């Protein structure tokens, strides 16, 4: 997080120093604009982001799902889901989140909401049909742990910062082609600080060009680490890491794209909803840009918790 904020301020500050000249330090327009836009977009997604995500996936609230149940077995599974969520919220000492069912046959689940009082958990029908009660408990514990660790808030803020960095990089790109003439005139006047200033300029230009990629990679790194944390704290709730491991194995086997979940909300799910597109390709770039760690790594980590790997 600190790296992120530092990167953002570095870009904004450089913008001020190199394009606005000496007056910039008294009124840093670039940094202020960066902070301003970042704050607005962060606040908007903070307060209404969860409703937008749920709407986009077509999630059904629990009572609607119950009334539309196709068979008694369906009713049984939905009541089981409700009971499991309540059990996990008792174990975590948190208020019970709202529960939703997504009519998608691919097994997946996600959690959203800015803090435990305003959280929602959604589960696909495919997951309800695939896993046993203990495995469902492991999955729900993982999602509730995302809520408990305030990961949603974290990823919202990071998403806002990534967007801001992309914007800044865009502006600076434009600024470079049209404003470089005026800035080089002002720099001719202080030749003694020329060398250090030039190196800094080069570093800053490279950062601007690579900024969107670096920002995205940093965001994905945070996302992957929080996934491991959610696995571990979820196992702390259930005291049964093997159940979650076998649930992950089942989800991995059935892996097909979860079409209901759009790209922007991919990081909130328990398994990468974009299908095996990233998972099959190994190597530097897919590993860098994946929202979730490799399933095999997660399963190994869980088995180590149970002293079985």
């Amino acid at each position, binding site marked *: 997080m600190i790296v992120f904020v530092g990167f953002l301020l570095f870009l904004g500050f450089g913008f001020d120093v190199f394009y606005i000249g000496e007056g910039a330090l008294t009124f840093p327009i670039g940094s202020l604009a960066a902070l301003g836009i970042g704050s607005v977009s962060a606040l908007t997604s903070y307060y209404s982001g969860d409703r937008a995500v749920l709407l986009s996936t077509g999630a059904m609230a629990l009572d609607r799902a119950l009334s539309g149940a196709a068979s008694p077995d369906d009713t*049984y599974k939905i009541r089981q889901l409700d009971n499991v969520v*309540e059990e996990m919220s008792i174990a975590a*000492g948190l208020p019970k989140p709202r529960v939703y069912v997504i009519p998608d046959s691919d097994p997946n689940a996600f959690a959203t909401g800015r803090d435990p009082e305003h959280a929602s958990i959604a589960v696909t029908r495919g997951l309800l049909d695939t896993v046993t009660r203990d495995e469902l408990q492991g999955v729900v514990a993982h999602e509730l742990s995302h809520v408990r660790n305030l990961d949603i808030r974290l990823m919202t803020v990071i998403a806002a910062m990534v967007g801001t960095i992309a914007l800044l990089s865009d502006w600076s790109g434009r600024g470079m082609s049209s404003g470089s003439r005026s800035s080089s005139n002002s720099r001719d006047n202080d030749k003694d600080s020329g060398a250090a200033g030039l190196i800094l300029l080069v570093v800053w230009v490279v950062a601007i060009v690579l900024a969107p990629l670096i920002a995205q990679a940093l965001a994905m790194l945070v996302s992957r680490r929080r996934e491991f944390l959610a696995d571990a704290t979820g196992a702390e709730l259930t005291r049964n890491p093997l159940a979650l491991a076998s649930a992950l194995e089942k989800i991995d086997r059935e892996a097909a794209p979860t079409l209901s979940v759009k790209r922007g909300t991919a990081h909130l799910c328990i398994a990468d909803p974009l299908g095996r597109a990233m998972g099959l390709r190994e190597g530097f770039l897919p590993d860098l840009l994946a929202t979730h760690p490799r399933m095999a790594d997660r399963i190994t980590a869980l088995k180590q918790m149970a002293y079985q790997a």
Partner: protein
Amino acid sequence: MTWILLAVVALVVVWAIALYNRLVGLRNQVLNGWRQIDVQLKRRHDLIPNLVNTVRGAMEFERDTLTQVMEARARAVSATGPADAARKEGELSQALGRLFAVAENYPTLRANENVKMLQEELTSTENKVGFARQFYNDIATTFNTAQQTFPSNMFASALGFKPSELFEITDATERQVPAVDLSMRK
């Protein structure tokens, strides 16, 4: 020099206030966790007898209808002579007719599903009691650790905090594996 001393004292005071507030918050969570176990136990006490009665009522209704069919069939099988057989087969047909009427009004004879739902609710209730106890132990451990780590341990008892007890089984027989005997013999 006095500025540095004042700054250090101010920092220590701020730290002590933060510690006190944190310990108060944890102590209240421990008390709450202890009472939450009672909440789940009361829910179990109130819910389970009612659920069992509901399921038993539904099963008895179906059992009566099925019993009539079985008895009529037994009588029909043990009929003596064609006239007797004809009469008893007629009674069996009537009983079957009643059974089919019941089946039409209640499209799925739901004894199995009712029992399955009852099992789920029983399991969930016991799980909830168990998880409430687990949460109590977890939060009590967090509270004890917060009091006992250095440097908080120097101030915790002075500020009036005591370590809390963890939940423990008092009846040793509860630790034994329960016997499960599904044989139908009485």
